[in-house]
């Protein structure tokens, strides 16, 4: 079981991810609605893992990922985005993301990815 922060600008996606992760036995300790909010909450609660959307207002998920890596080079971030172009996936992985889950996703895909990142 891990303490997880869910980052997504869409309330619906935060709800879906919360349900999937809670059913998978994890605890959601924070939610953020954009990259800036994610960095702010990360500093306060240091979760074991972060799920990160990409397309968000203010600061996008790739920029937020880079900020989190600066704060903690070992941070575990799983990208969850519909923008699954090869270039975007590679940029996220090169920037330090542990995995990339393309929306819309099946529950099993998310849980498997989180388990892999935590291992």
């Amino acid at each position, binding site marked *: 079981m891990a303490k997880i922060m869910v980052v997504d600008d869409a*309330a619906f996606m935060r709800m879906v991810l919360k349900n999937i992760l809670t059913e998978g036995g994890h605890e959601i300790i924070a939610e953020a609605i954009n990259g800036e909010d994610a960095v702010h909450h990360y500093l306060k609660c240091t979760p074991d893992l972060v799920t990160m959307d990409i397309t968000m207002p203010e600061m996008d998920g790739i920029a937020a990922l880079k900020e989190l890596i600066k704060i903690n080079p070992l941070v575990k971030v799983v990208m969850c985005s*519909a923008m699954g*172009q*090869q270039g975007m996936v590679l940029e996220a992985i090169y920037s330090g993301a542990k995995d990339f889950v393309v*929306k819309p996703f099946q529950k099993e895909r998310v849980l498997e990815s989180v388990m892999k990142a935590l291992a």
Partner: protein
Amino acid sequence: MLNEFEVITKVGENVLKGYLGLNAQPLRQQEQQESYIGKDIGVIIQLVGQMDGQVICTMNLDTVKSLIGRMMGGLEIGQLDDMCWSALQEFGNWIVSGIAIELSELGIDVNITHPIIQEGFTIIHSRSKFMAVPISTEIGTVEIYISLEKNNQVAV
């Protein structure tokens, strides 16, 4: 060569059939200069980059409710609330991001904007032609309009 009809049917089937488990059947495509959207609710998303344009996914209210219900894992939807609007925006996001992924595989780089919800009868006026692709399902027809133009980056 970009075939918008093929791209939309592929992405539409991927989301509606592959993910939501609906029996999705693309119907004929129609090209129109000016589009009259008679359906109740739509999601509008812009594409910007090496090609510019917009995509509108539009449906009747009952179809919207059934679609959102499915997205929420089989809920019965009465009144549309903020969570429902967020779900519908996300549906548009999945479709248009899917289109962006298909375009990237053709070497065309595009980004997408935040979804906007449209309610009620709408007429779209555009410089470029809209193509309409209706996809029929057991919960009603999801109509996808697309208008895409090469961005020649003409100096203003």
